[in-house]
């Protein structure tokens, strides 16, 4: 029984990381209707930004303090937001009017470019690095159940960011513009919405989320490497689709669900080697009954 509860905690902790990355995927998709395959790599760059920022920040603010951690997080988010805007401007904007699959290939190209560049020995190199302890890491024990402070932080951050995002999208002016662009870009432009600004903003916001996820991930798992975003990014993408891509609470739900499923499958004797197959199998089953994901709107055919 304790073990089952422990697995639930493990699953929620893992799932909240997926959810955090999935939020970025889903938001960009919601506005642009295209899968930004480079999202997982921005996630990795965010972690590396945190790695390089930790030292200079520690000179100003004493290391291993919450304030220092937040400063590093904010700076990394800012850097990645800029990066996201630049990527969108250079790689995706010229293809805006093209079929989405064309942009998808560019996204795969960007993703490979970031991975191979970062693996180069003159950039980060291929071997893993130790991520500094930004905030003091403690573990709580409750009657055999073990919860790490980093796990709690991730879960709390995911929920806070989801609320903040929902607020931005639903209540602010730029959020209204985002929804307008998502609904119909031409009409939005005619109504005086600067579509380019809105898309840049969306990419910036999505990339900042990826950076936050990257740092929280690195805090949780101690080591970072240039390919850390590949597998995790793919899982987050699955989570986003599972929840109904384009839907913010859906992404969070999809992430948590995937995390829990993976954890229970992975912890079961005899089938742990089929973990990924089981996770995908459940995804397929769900999509067969709800073809637009758990919380996605059933779209009527456009004629």
């Amino acid at each position, binding site marked *: 029984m304790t073990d089952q509860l*422990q*697995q639930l905690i*493990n699953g929620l902790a*893992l799932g909240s990381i997926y959810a955090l990355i999935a939020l970025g995927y889903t938001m960009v998709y919601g506005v642009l209707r295209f899968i930004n395959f480079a999202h997982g790599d921005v996630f990795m760059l965010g972690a590396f930004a945190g790695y390089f920022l930790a030292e200079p920040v520690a000179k100003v603010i004493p290391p291993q303090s919450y304030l220092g951690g937040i400063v590093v997080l904010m700076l990394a988010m800012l850097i990645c937001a800029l990066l996201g805007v630049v990527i969108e401007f250079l790689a995706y904007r010229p293809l805006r009017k093209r079929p989405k699959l064309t942009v998808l290939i560019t996204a795969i190209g960007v993703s490979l470019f970031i991975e191979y560049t970062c693996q180069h020995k003159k950039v980060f190199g291929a*071997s893993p690095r130790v991520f500094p302890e930004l905030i003091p890491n403690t573990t709580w024990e409750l009657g055999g159940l073990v919860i790490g402070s980093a796990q709690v932080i991730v879960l709390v951050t995911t929920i806070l960011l989801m609320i903040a995002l929902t607020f931005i999208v639903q209540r602010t002016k730029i959020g209204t513009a985002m929804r307008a662009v998502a609904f119909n870009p031409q009409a939005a432009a005619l109504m005086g919405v600067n579509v380019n600004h809105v898309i840049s903003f969306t990419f910036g916001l999505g990339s900042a989320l990826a950076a936050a996820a990257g740092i929280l991930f690195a805090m949780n*798992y101690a080591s970072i490497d240039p390919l*850390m975003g590949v597998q995790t990014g793919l899982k987050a993408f699955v989570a986003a689709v599972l929840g109904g891509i384009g839907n913010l609470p859906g992404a969070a739900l999809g992430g948590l669900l995937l995390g829990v499923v993976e*954890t229970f499958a992975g912890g079961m*004797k005899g089938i742990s080697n089929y973990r990924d197959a089981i996770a995908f199998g459940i995804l397929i089953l769900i999509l067969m009954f709800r073809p637009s994901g758990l919380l996605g709107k059933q779209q009527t055919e456009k004629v």
Partner: protein
Amino acid sequence: MKLARLIYANSLFCLLAALLVGCGQGTGGGSGAGGGTGSSSSGSNSGGEIKVGEFASLTGKEATFGISSHEGTLLAVEEINAAGGILGKQVKLITEDTQSKPGESATVVNKLIARDSVIAVLGEVASSRSMEAAPICQKNKIPMISPSSTNPKVTESGDYVFRVCFIDPFQGTVMANFATSTLKAKKVAIFTDAKSDYSKGLAKFFKEKYLANGGTISSELDYNGGDKDFKAQLTTIRGGSPDAVFVPGYYTDVALICIQAKQLGLNVPLLGGDGWESEKLTEIGKDSVEGHYFSTHYHPEVGTEISKKFLENYKKRFNGKIPDALAANGYDSMLMLADGIKRAGGTDSAKLRDALAATKDLTLVTGVITINQQRDADKSAVILQIKNGGYKFLESIKP
């Protein structure tokens, strides 16, 4: 109409292919010029140099292992050349990247042999990729030495395929005996990397021996190399309350497994193989890896003259980086080849093969090796314990 055009194109690409294939007949001209460090000279090994091919995973998922191995080999070549080469000839190392991808090794080794006309091929850390290259080397009668592929099947491809490392059955047996006799563990859990043949192979031989020794397996679980979260499996392992856990994996994953095992309160010794050996293990794992055991090729500190020299030179050459087991094996593969060439008195492939097969009591960084009937290296393994961020030598086991 369109169909006709299509079929026209069909024959067009046949021509294209013919062109492509035809390039090979030229003097190495055509597409792309030379690889890695190579130039496009088409001659054999006449011009006072010995061309040695190397294939390694320099990019992709297993880049960190491939690069280590490559650096070891590179260092060996540089040292040999600085000392005047082999039989008065300089060694030229032509390295090709396999991107950690199945399918690439075959292509790359074909290139090294057919285009660069290398006299021998060194390579791959991963057994699956060595197994892909081995039949090609065998077919072309080019000796191949694998630095770190421990799967027994690698050298079964033919009499031109060798290795400088020990094989999985030996290492698995060593650790199984260690678990039963030294640790007195009655119940062991096994935690393997489902994606890695190295991990699976080692676990298989460990399990066989351990069960034969009268032990029981509490649980067997898998992860996928590159995973970051192992808590699910570790929680289940904890539930079986084993006396020790055998984790034959690579240090990148093992460090995280150690950390998470400690967080979950799984305070039993973890055991592993040579894939553990890297400074990164203690760097990432910090105090979580303390007290765990693993088997490997040599002990860097109480090593022989040659291994001390290797440690020093490697650090000097690669900005203070401490060599791991893979780097040492990479270095050794080149030394073994150099020794073979010297004894063969040249690079004639049949003579070189015979010389390599006759390698006996050769002192290398990772120990004294003898090539046995199966063209595997007979050498001893050492068992180390991680203590105070360093390694404590426990025992040395002869094959």
